[in-house]
């Protein structure tokens, strides 16, 4: 691998990301998957970096999942999105940041469609007006939340308590970065680093001390794919995709996986359990799995937040071996204690995949 | 005549005697082995035929005409025929007359088998002998005839073209030894008898030579060495005989009655096949006949070499030779001893082992699509009204012009017909059979038989000779007539149902291998063509017709290798400058069409074009 070659491509896919004043929209599903992640994002942006991130309880789904599952027509999803933009306009913001990759892709796709077919935009404006008497301005800047963490990566690094380094050997951790498909595969120019070698997560890993692993199936989908997972008959297909990815990264012995999409960390985490149950195979050391994180969780870890406050106990794959490797302090007793140290009960342990 | 030696023996008879004992025992053992290798029913049939008067007479006639007179070779080339019969018949007569001499003059020596051969050494002329001068004359005459044959044989080695042969076989080492010893026998006999002629008597040849010799070789010291040499030549010839092509002489005597008994090749190497292989005289007539031999190519892949390789058990070459052959059957047709080059090769192919074997059980034998009387039937009653099932065959599918013409003819004849394979059918099995996979071929035959029987047809009409051959030979269709379209059309014209118009177009007819040599249909197509124009013949025609080169018989010949063969076959067809080349085989038609400088048609197309008036009953 010629690193300079990648750098050259990264230099060609740079995207302008304003520093401050963002209108933030959440993901539909992340709250349930890794509830600590979005909280940590706002925590870092607002409290650590003191940036202005506005959020409104009136925003809804972007319609992306329904759109990609072919259950609603394009006009509907566009009108939903137009309403979100109206909320932004009403709040007086022009930088729009989405927590969800599908949303981000959805917004990017709609904005591009409107650019190509202005008559469609006019039609949507009419529909939005008819539906809820709202008007909107298109966002000046559209970003995914990971774009912002990427932008703040060096600032975070300067405040970091830990680095992505093996405490004992001093070696950088081997990190697999996995980008959500809708981040830049549809519009390479909308993502940091393009589609072929997206830099958004690489940049974070490099800034925080880790080494990125480049493995053959790096481009491959995590396996979620709405229509695949949501229909039980297709679920084996979803699982097979994930399996393919893990088989491909296995020889590199990665320490962890970092992702920027709601679905990816969830499926790459949970499917490791299913793969272990169905094939007896685990990918981490000593029967453990490879922990999968969202970028906010990783940012939180390096900044020194308590792992259990980050919600890492909701991961199927045990994170403790990695925490030990980095040297992050945590209290094992607190893993299944909720707020106010209330016992949230210990889950049953899987038969094959080793967990703490 | 009186005897010169009381013992009636001299040491020089030993080489001959040992040789004769050896060869006779060899032949007897060989014969027993071959007969033993025959399947029991064939063996039984053979022995019955030997005592059946009709076959007995045929055997004697055939052996006399073929082995001694070589009538087939006479038909091919007079000089070559004379060469063969002079040696064979002359030698035979020398033996016969020699025995008569012994009977007449020294009857008590009859039991000494060498006596007739060396008679002149053991006897001296007396006054009374002159009564036998006719016998003396005959002996010298036949010796002269044999010597003339030997002289021709020597000339043939140098100038084979004189004998109508462009190419001859490359003799093996033993062949050469055998040949030289054979050539030496008779001059040596002449020499020996000439040296003894003043004692034992002789006729115009030996006596005259004796006078010449005595003028400069005064004593009898040369006598014994000459007899020794004569005996040695015979001895050597007998000893090497089993390893030379001359083995054909004794084997053919066995082959003829076996063939007359109706025995066929059942095993690639044993029994009848073995008899055929050993009957090959290596004359090399098949080399010139072979259509693959264009531009001196593939000479070593002709039947004569196949036989040689089978005798040597050279498996790699046997496979190569037998797989390459086009199976046109011409070598079989012209072989003077009747070696069946094509069948021998198919037999070799049949012993191949395959890991994957066909299975047609999933193919339905479905006759439901076959519907008669789908068109207006106007033909007069009787034969013309029979239900005709037309099977175009795989190859015709690639030359749809033929099936189209056939359908048009059937319509014009007002016949009640149906197509068996309009949308593709099951292969007739002949290509599979030719590849030696008999079991698979049989399965195909069964499938088609089932369909044909279920169709309710009276006649099965074919336009592909490849199909025709296997339908005639391997199908049992319970009274359904099997007919090739050449015969069918000839019949329609003869019955006056079709009345084609005639003009002065010159047609040449190419006899397809499978139709002509394969099924013996030569006249019908010619009759048909004569009804529409002038028929000219190809240089080589009928059973000597040259294969188009497209044959499915060859398993290995590549497309590029066949071109020269096709062009050679075309050159043979156009010597009389025909306007149109007519054939009766879809494969010949498409093969010729590729390289021909003039139109090539199937006979059905020709006739269809020439019928404008349709007959209404």
């Amino acid at each position: 691998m010629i690193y300079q070659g990648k750098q050259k491509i990264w230099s060609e896919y740079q995207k302008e990301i304003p520093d401050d004043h963002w209108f933030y929209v959440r993901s539909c599903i992340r709250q349930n998957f890794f509830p600590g992640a979005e909280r940590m994002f706002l925590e870092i942006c607002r409290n650590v970096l003191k940036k202005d991130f506005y959020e409104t309880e009136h925003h809804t789904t972007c319609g992306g999942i329904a759109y990609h599952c072919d259950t609603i027509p394009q006009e509907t999803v566009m009108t939903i999105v137009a309403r979100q933009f109206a909320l932004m306009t009403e709040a007086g913001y022009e930088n729009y940041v989405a927590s969800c990759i599908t949303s981000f892709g959805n917004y990017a796709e709609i904005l591009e469609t409107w650019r190509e077919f202005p008559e469609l935009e006019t039609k949507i404006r009419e529909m939005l007006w008819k539906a809820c008497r709202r008007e909107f301005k298109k966002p000046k800047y559209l970003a995914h939340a990971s774009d912002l963490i990427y932008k703040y990566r060096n600032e975070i690094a300067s405040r970091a308590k830990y680095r992505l380094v093996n405490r004992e050997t001093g070696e950088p951790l081997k990190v697999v970065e996995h980008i959500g498909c809708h981040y830049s595969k549809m519009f390479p120019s909308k993502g940091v680093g393009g589609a072929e070698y997206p830099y958004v997560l690489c940049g974070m890993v490099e800034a925080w001390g880790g080494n990125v692993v480049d493995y053959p199936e790096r481009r491959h989908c995590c396996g979620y794919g709405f229509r695949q997972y949501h229909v039980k008959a297709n679920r084996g297909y979803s699982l097979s995709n994930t399996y393919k990815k893990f088989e491909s990264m296995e020889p590199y012995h990665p320490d962890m996986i970092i992702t920027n999409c709601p679905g990816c960390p969830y499926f790459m985490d949970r499917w490791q359990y299913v793969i272990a149950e169905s094939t007896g195979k685990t990918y981490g050391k000593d029967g453990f799995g490879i922990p999968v994180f969202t970028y906010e969780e990783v940012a939180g870890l390096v900044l020194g937040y308590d792992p259990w406050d980050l919600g890492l106990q909701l991961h199927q794959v045990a994170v403790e071996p990695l925490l030990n490797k980095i040297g992050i302090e945590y209290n094992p007793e607190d893993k299944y204690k909720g707020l106010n140290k209330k016992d949230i009960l210990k889950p049953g342990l899987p038969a094959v995949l080793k967990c703490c | 005549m009186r005897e010169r030696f009381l013992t009636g023996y001299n040491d020089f008879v030993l080489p001959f005697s040992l040789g004769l004992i050896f060869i006779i025992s060899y032949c007897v053992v060989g014969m027993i082995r071959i007969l033993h290798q025959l399947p029991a029913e064939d063996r039984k049939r053979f022995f019955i035929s030997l005592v059946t008067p009709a076959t007995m007479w045929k055997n004697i006639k055939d052996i006399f005409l073929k082995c001694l007179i070589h009538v087939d070779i006479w038909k091919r080339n007079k000089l070559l025929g004379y060469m063969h019969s002079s040696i064979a018949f002359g030698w035979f007569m020398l033996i016969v007359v020699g025995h008569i001499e012994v009977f007449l003059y020294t009857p008590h020596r009859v039991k000494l088998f060498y006596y007739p051969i060396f008679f002149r050494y053991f006897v001296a002329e007396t006054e009374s002998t002159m009564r036998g001068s006719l016998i003396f004359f005959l002996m010298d005459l036949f010796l002269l005839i044999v010597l003339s044959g030997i002289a021709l044989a020597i000339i043939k080695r140098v100038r084979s073209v004189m004998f109508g042969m462009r190419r001859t076989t490359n003799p093996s080492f033993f062949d050469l030894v055998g040949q030289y010893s054979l050539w030496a026998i008779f001059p040596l006999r002449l020499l020996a008898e000439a040296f003894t002629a003043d004692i034992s008597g002789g006729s115009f040849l030996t006596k005259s030579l004796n006078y010449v010799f005595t003028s400069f070789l005064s004593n009898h010291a040369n006598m014994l060495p000459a007899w020794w040499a004569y005996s040695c030549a015979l001895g050597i010839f007998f000893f090497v005989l089993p390893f030379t092509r001359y083995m054909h002489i004794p084997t053919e005597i066995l082959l003829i009655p076996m063939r007359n008994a109706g025995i066929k090749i059942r095993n690639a190497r044993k029994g009848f096949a073995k008899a055929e292989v050993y009957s090959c005289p290596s004359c090399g007539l098949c080399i010139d006949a072979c259509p693959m031999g264009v531009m001196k190519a593939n000479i070593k892949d002709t039947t004569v070499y196949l036989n040689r390789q089978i005798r040597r058990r050279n498996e790699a070459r046997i496979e190569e030779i037998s797989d390459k052959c086009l199976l046109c059957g011409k070598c079989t047709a012209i072989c003077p001893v009747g070696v069946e080059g094509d069948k021998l090769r198919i037999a070799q192919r049949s012993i191949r082992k395959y890991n994957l074997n066909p299975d047609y059980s999933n193919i339905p034998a479905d006759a439901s699509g076959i519907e008669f009387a789908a068109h207006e039937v106007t033909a007069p009653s009787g034969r013309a009204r029979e239900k005709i099932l037309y099977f175009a065959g795989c190859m015709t599918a690639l030359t749809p012009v033929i099936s189209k013409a056939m359908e048009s003819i059937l319509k014009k004849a007002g016949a009640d017909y149906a197509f068996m394979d309009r949308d593709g059918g099951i292969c007739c099995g002949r290509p599979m059979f030719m590849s030696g996979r008999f079991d698979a071929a049989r399965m195909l035959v069964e499938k088609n038989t089932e369909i044909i029987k279920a169709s309710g047809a009276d006649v099965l009409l074919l336009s592909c000779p490849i199909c025709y051959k296997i339908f005639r030979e391997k199908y049992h269709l319970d009274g359904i007539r099997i007919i090739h379209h050449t015969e069918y059309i000839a019949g329609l014209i003869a019955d006056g149902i079709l009345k084609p118009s005639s003009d002065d177009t010159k047609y040449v007819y190419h006899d397809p291998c499978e139709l002509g040599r394969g099924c013996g249909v030569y006249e019908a197509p010619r009759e048909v063509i004569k009804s529409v124009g002038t028929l000219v013949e190809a240089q080589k025609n009928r059973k000597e017709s040259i294969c188009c080169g497209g044959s499915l018989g060859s398993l290995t010949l590549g497309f590029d290798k066949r071109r020269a063969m096709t062009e050679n076959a075309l050159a043979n067809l156009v010597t009389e400058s025909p306007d149109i080349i007519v054939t009766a085989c879809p494969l010949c038609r498409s093969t010729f069409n590729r390289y021909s400088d003039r139109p090539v048609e199937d006979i059905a197309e020709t006739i269809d074009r020439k019928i404008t008036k349709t007959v209404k009953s």
Partner: protein
Amino acid sequence: MDFGFKISPSSAINLDKIDLTMFEKLHEMEPDVYKCIACGSCSATCPAARYSGMSMRKVILDLQRGREKEVFSMMKNCMLCGKCTMVCPRGINTRHLILSISKLYCETK
């Protein structure tokens, strides 16, 4: 544990893992086998095609892709009629190729 779904085997052809020793042997016997341009003439004309899906084009390809089972089931119905050889624009002797495959490849292996 039965989840009601499972990892499906990859349908992809992995050329690294295909053992072509047999095919190399076949190639020695039939050098022209590499000349195929996959035009499909053979398949279109094949009388066995409508029963077993026999296609010489697929046979040649599948042998190179390690899909021998498919080859065997296709070849079952071949009648050796020779039409494929007649129509091959590259002059491949497909008929002999079929015999060579039948000789070389073993179904039970």
